[in-house]
């Protein structure tokens, strides 16, 4: 119980700090890859603080409420994860959080926001099967959906669910909103819809979206970490290193690909999920 409370509190406090720093590193590394100097690592925090000082404007009286729910449910998702709860519970709550964000964008009835919302929804459909399959893989490998149980499994889950790990890393590109699959709310000006879903968010509302993403990213890296947790310090170290390497890999991919069409996102994500999921689960069943 104490461990649970400590890790939840740690997540609540450290989550946005780590997430923000990672976002800062992302910008720095990206800048270097593009032969620029880039902003200081603390820049994402400056940006968010600046957003909170903007004029309070909105396009209707419900949008900000939905965004608030998005933030709350994203944090709840992370808390459930770090409290060692069931992975399925975590993923289902995450879907609810994304739905709030999508509905927020739809509620504005703005052309750009709605185009972004529809694309975001497509992305959810693209990655959802792989995410669910990875939870099932953990269960079949360790006998439990609970993060707390998986954490103390004797062998690294990775060795049993390697296929699902690869699949999950693949769809992380979508989850981290990286090119070539940054369809819905791209930061980069290399596509026709810039900002997309975020078009109608401003000031504190936009700040909430940013903070929610920091929380979400930390939780997602936690998921990568989980593949290597085996109750030993060595396992934890490997987990953290692999999680950071994955993050770096996504930055690298982000900078090496132009955006692809939406068909590529759903085709590739579903084929990867079906192929790797079926093979890996079948092997698990036989062992």
């Amino acid at each position, binding site marked *: 119980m104490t461990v649970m409370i400590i890790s939840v509190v740690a997540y609540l406090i450290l989550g946005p700090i780590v997430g923000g720093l990672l976002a800062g590193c992302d910008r720095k590394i990206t800048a270097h890859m593009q032969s620029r100097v880039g902003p200081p690592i603390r820049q994402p925090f400056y940006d968010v603080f600046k957003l909170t000082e903007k004029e309070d*404007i909105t396009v209707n009286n419900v949008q900000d409420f939905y965004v608030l729910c998005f933030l709350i449910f994203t944090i709840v998702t992370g808390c459930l994860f770090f409290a060692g709860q069931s992975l399925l519970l975590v993923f*289902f709550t995450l879907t609810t959080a994304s739905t709030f964000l999508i509905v927020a964008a739809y509620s504005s009835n703005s052309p*750009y926001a709605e185009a972004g919302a*529809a694309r975001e*929804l497509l992305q959810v459909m693209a990655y959802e099967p792989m995410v669910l399959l990875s939870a099932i893989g953990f269960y079949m490998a360790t006998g439990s959906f609970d993060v707390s149980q998986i954490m103390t499994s004797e062998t690294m889950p990775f060795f049993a669910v390697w296929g699902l790990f690869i699949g999950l890393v693949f769809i992380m590109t979508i989850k981290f909103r990286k090119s070539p699959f940054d369809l819905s709310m791209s930061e980069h000006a290399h596509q026709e819809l810039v900002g997309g879903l975020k078009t109608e968010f401003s000031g504190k509302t936009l700040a909430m979206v940013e903070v929610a993403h920091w929380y979400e990213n930390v939780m997602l890296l936690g998921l990568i970490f989980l593949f290597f947790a085996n109750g030993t310090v060595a396992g934890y170290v490997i987990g953290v290193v692999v999680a950071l390497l994955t993050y770096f890999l996504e930055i690298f991919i982000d900078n090496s690909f132009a955006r692809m069409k939406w068909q590529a996102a759903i085709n590739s994500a579903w084929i990867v999920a079906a192929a790797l999921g079926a093979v890996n689960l079948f092997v698990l069943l036989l062992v």
Partner: protein
Amino acid sequence: MSTIIFLIVFPLVVAVALLILKADAARDIVVKVGSAVIIAASIYLVVKYFSSGGQYFSASNEAVGTAMTIISALLAIVGFVLGIKYKKYLACLLVVVTTPLQLWFEFTKGHEIAVNYNMYIDRLSMIMVLIIGIIGTLICVYALGYMKDDQKHQKDGKDRRPWFFFLMFVFLSAMFGIVTSNNLLWMFFFWEITTYCSFFLIGYNGLFHKKEFEDKIATRNAFRAFIMTSLGGLGFVIGIILLGSGLGTIELSTMLAYGSMGGSVVAPALFLVFAGLTKAAQMPFDSWLLGAMVAPTPTSALLHSSTMVKAGVFLIIKLAPVLGWNIAGIMAMFVGGITFLMTSFAAIGQSNGKKVLAYSTISNLGLICACGGVGTPEAVWAGIMLIIFHAITKCLMFLCVGTAEHQIGSRNIEDMDGLFEKLPRLAGCMMIGIAGMYLAPFGMLISKWATLTAFVDSGNILLILIICFGSAATVFYWTKWLGKLSATMAGRENLQKNVHGEETFVHVTLATLTVLVCLCFPFISSTLVVPYLVSAFGAVDALALSANNMIIMCIMIAVIVLLFIFFFGRTNKKIVPIYMNGVNEGDNLSFKNAFQAPTEVGLRNWYMESYFGEVKMNVIGCVATAVLEVACIVAVAALMLGGIA
């Protein structure tokens, strides 16, 4: 016992009264009072047998059996004559085969079989009685207001509402019969009554009309439903005959007991499952339920939520203890699974609101059938939860779409943008309904979660893949509808005042029930579902959902409700126009085009026809399931012939 008889007979009395009474005011009173009495009796029945957990009744009565036989024969004649009249000879053929087969069995073999218990009540029946009694009657109350509007659209001006309400209440009576009959011949009698009721209800705008006023599609779809469900009826009779001649019993309880002790009841179970699959509109027989939407909305709501299709899944869930990894179980799990996946995909490509609902119903029923087929206690737990949550939520959704259709003149989802401004209360109820269909922490998601866990535990990888991909599709089609509803569009006229009081009452009641049932589902689980599973399976090791998770879900519901109550729709911020590249005309609805003229903005959802086209999904699904069903039936036939030789 007397309460059960009352629940079957009283709706019949109400039905006859409604057939005689022609005045609106009288009908209003009879339906409302009748519904209140049925709800009270349903609750009383549950309270009465709650502590004992149920009872079996001998209820042997020659007269009842004879009456049932006579009514079956009369109905068969009606079906045959109508088939001739409308030149639907396949319907005639099915009637001519099924009914004589049934009568032959009853008078020869069936006559010698002693039946100990004709009726029963157990906890699963109690759940069904509550669903039929509460949801079913609410639909009848809703129909009062709805049918007044509907009457204005009747081209020939004839008032057929007495007939309509008569059928609705007969339907409820028959449903009560299905869930409390232990004698399979009795169950089959009620089963056929529901077939005929749905036939007449779907054909409400076509059958018995003069040629020039006949809605041809209604007649066609009514016959399609009749033919497909009668095919299931034929399966039911074959199942009874196999059971009667093989094991010398026609009691459901004996069959399940024999099967649970290791005896083989695969052959009769297979045919009963087949009957259940057709009734539950599983592929390749899904088209009858899609066609049923030509009928007035209360009919669709009744067919989809508390009656008809629920009879099909009830039978499969009831048979679950003898299913599992045998031919009958395999048929149920994979026909259900394939149907779930294909119809979830097909729903993406639809913009007709009722069609989306229909596909969603079929897909959820598929999941329930799959749960029954897997046949483990935890799968059945998930299946029963799906039945409960689906009945309430789907009923809410249908009745909302029906009202929206009358108010905005369209059932197209694309026309529902701005509904939030036009019909705020209705849109709110619809949003609750949609959230209830697929989002955590609402009911359907809880059941789906349990289903997923149950499939994993049974080691069925194909079903696991099916549910993972199907769920992703589900998220897509519901969220895009939710988005449309949430869109705020200024300057729309508020139409809420035009909605009948009865309609709003039922919407709000159902929306409240959707949330309430989620809050008290741990209670429903521990007092009704788990005890039922213990009695049906002997023991229940572990539930798919731990108590811990159930509590977290309940807390989340409470949080969402509170958030909405305190923060929804309030803002202190300045409201500014939306971004339209600097050419917003200022009303958020139009922009300046290249010639400086205002052009209205049109936003359309995404249907991905090339991926999830309706025809493609239906062809793949129907071929796969038809092949599977034929293979299973041939396999069982071969085994039986082998056994005899």
